[in-house]
């Protein structure tokens, strides 16, 4: 089942999920997920509320049993033994601690549950998340952001090779979100593979190199963000001296698709070569170009196109896998 990591060729992939299903009675919270997180990835797991992201992460961490399918973390099944979680850390939903113990005591407890070398990393982990000065305060008095950071510190005690984080920036103020983003980036730069679920698409776009987009328990896209943008095609805006004629030219031009009028201007999708030929065709048709500019496609645009409406993103449609 577990395949060698294609990217590094150095053993099983950090995360390998095949045919994962979780049903609660009639409801399929996760309806057949396949994904692979390669070593070194910062992998975004995206989807609207109720898409099954957290359920999937719980199965990856061995907290709930899949109805069907398999999860392998570095080739090991977390349902079989806690040893499968060696080198793996993270949290689902908000990280939780014993409110009547202080931050350090909580970490000491968790370090004791990790093995004795984890205890030696407590100070370093507290420093990393900038909680050393509050380590002797009871966690019951911590803000949400501090608990999130303590959650990261608890994960670092395990000296992880893989971090599984569920909405790590949710509920944080802008400064807290920035700090969390920087922290994840730094951890990734140091060789830790990160898989994170998030609603914050700009954050995912900035942090992640690969994503899975889920809708109603199914993956509708898995692969590199750059590939997703490339396959989606570039969108252009066009304004000419004769837009009516230009629209007709666009619709007739090979390689140009989805030509329409948006807010008084023509919008269409095409690759670079088709745009060059279109500009010549417009001139020949007497529609002189005033503006011909590419529009930046954001991950958010792509996310909504994949998770809303009935088109290519329908629940029954097969997943797009790239990269």
């Amino acid at each position, binding site marked *: 089942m577990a395949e060698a990591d294609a990217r590094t060729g*150095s*053993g099983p992939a950090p995360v390998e999920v095949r045919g994962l299903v979780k049903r609660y009675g009639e409801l399929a919270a996760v309806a057949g997920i396949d994904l692979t997180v390669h070593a070194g990835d910062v992998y975004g797991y995206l989807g609207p509320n109720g898409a099954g992201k957290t*359920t999937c992460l*719980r199965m990856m*961490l*061995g*907290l*709930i*049993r899949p109805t069907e399918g398999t999860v392998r973390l*570095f080739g090991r099944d977390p349902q079989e*033994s*806690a*040893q499968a*979680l*060696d*080198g793996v*850390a*993270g*949290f*689902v*939903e*908000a*990280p*939780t*601690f*014993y*409110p*009547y*113990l202080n931050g350090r005591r909580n970490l000491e*407890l*968790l370090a*004791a*549950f*990790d*093995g*004795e*070398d*984890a205890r030696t*990393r407590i100070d*370093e982990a507290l*420093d*990393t*998340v*900038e909680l050393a000065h509050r380590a002797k305060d009871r966690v019951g008095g911590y803000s949400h952001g501090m608990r999130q950071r303590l959650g990261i510190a*608890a994960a*670092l005690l*395990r*000296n*992880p*090779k893989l971090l599984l984080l569920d909405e790590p920036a949710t509920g944080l103020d802008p400064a807290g979100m920035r*700090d969390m983003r*920087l*922290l994840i980036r*730094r*951890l990734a730069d*140091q*060789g*830790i593979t990160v898989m994170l679920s998030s609603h914050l698409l700009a954050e995912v776009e900035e942090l992640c190199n690969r994503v899975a987009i889920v809708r109603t328990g199914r993956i509708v896209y898995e692969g590199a963000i750059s590939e997703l943008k490339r396959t989606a095609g570039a969108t252009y805006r066009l304004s000419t001296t004769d837009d009516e004629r230009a629209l007709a030219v666009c619709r007739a031009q090979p390689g140009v698709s989805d030509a329409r009028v948006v807010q008084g201007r023509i919008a269409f999708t095409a690759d670079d070569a088709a745009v060059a030929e279109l500009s010549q065709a417009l001139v020949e048709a007497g529609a002189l170009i005033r503006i011909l500019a590419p529009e930046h496609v954001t991950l958010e645009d792509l996310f909504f196109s994949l998770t809303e409406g009935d088109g290519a993103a329908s629940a029954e449609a097969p997943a797009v896998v790239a990269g």
Partner: protein
Amino acid sequence: MSAVAQPAGGVSERTRSRPGVGAVYRWELFKLRFQKRTYLGLGASALVPIIFVVAIQFRHHRDNGGDFAFASYLTKSGLVVPLVILLFGAVWMFPLITALVAGDIFASEDHNGTLKTVLTRSLERWQIFAGKALAAATYAVVAIAINGTVAVVAGCLESGFNSVQTLTGTIVSAPKGLELVYLSLLFYLIPIATVVCIGLMLSTITRNSAAAVVGTLMVSLLFQLIGILPGLGATQPYLLSTQFNAWQGLLRQPIDWSPIIRAVWVCALYGVPALGTAFLVFLRRDVAGG
């Protein structure tokens, strides 16, 4: 934020000692030190004998006895006090004190969401279960020990460290009486262990601390109720409530072991399935809340 050390080596290269049941047990006991319910239960264990001795002092001048075992000896030897408390504590006090922790130990983790935190570390579920179950049992032992010791001290201060009359009428010396008191406390732990098992079962099944604590007490009271219902006399020897009196066999000359032996297997009959259910539920359950 400062830099993080480069993770050393691959996962398979790690050579670290794995945690075990002992780590869970130690930290469960540590956590109990910070919880109000711990002190509520242990406080009650210590306070009840003191209140009882004060009450004896007030009643002393009005009448000298009652219609229960050892009643006539209450003011003659302080060693009788812990035995009388064992007699009456079985109804609700000891089951409640035991349930305060046994019923809460899994349910509160569920409620607070900390179960998912500990389950994503390096411990197997059975290890977490075993550590918690041992901690709940330890708490019950400590509560009984505190109760017995405070009762001995308070009783002896009030009535003296004197010889005791057994249930068969023979008189035993004070040191022998003290030995019998602690042996009684020891055998009292048999039905208490069953209450712990029931508490653990309800804690894992209900995932609700209050429901598990009250439920454990209700089960205990239900046995008491069945015991007094007319027409159900034949069931009496096999009720959990009856086993709370098994220690009285020690206070006969010669010692009557039959109620103690029966207590062992009857309590096992109730306790083992309850503990097994708790274990299986905890091992197989989805941790989705919190």
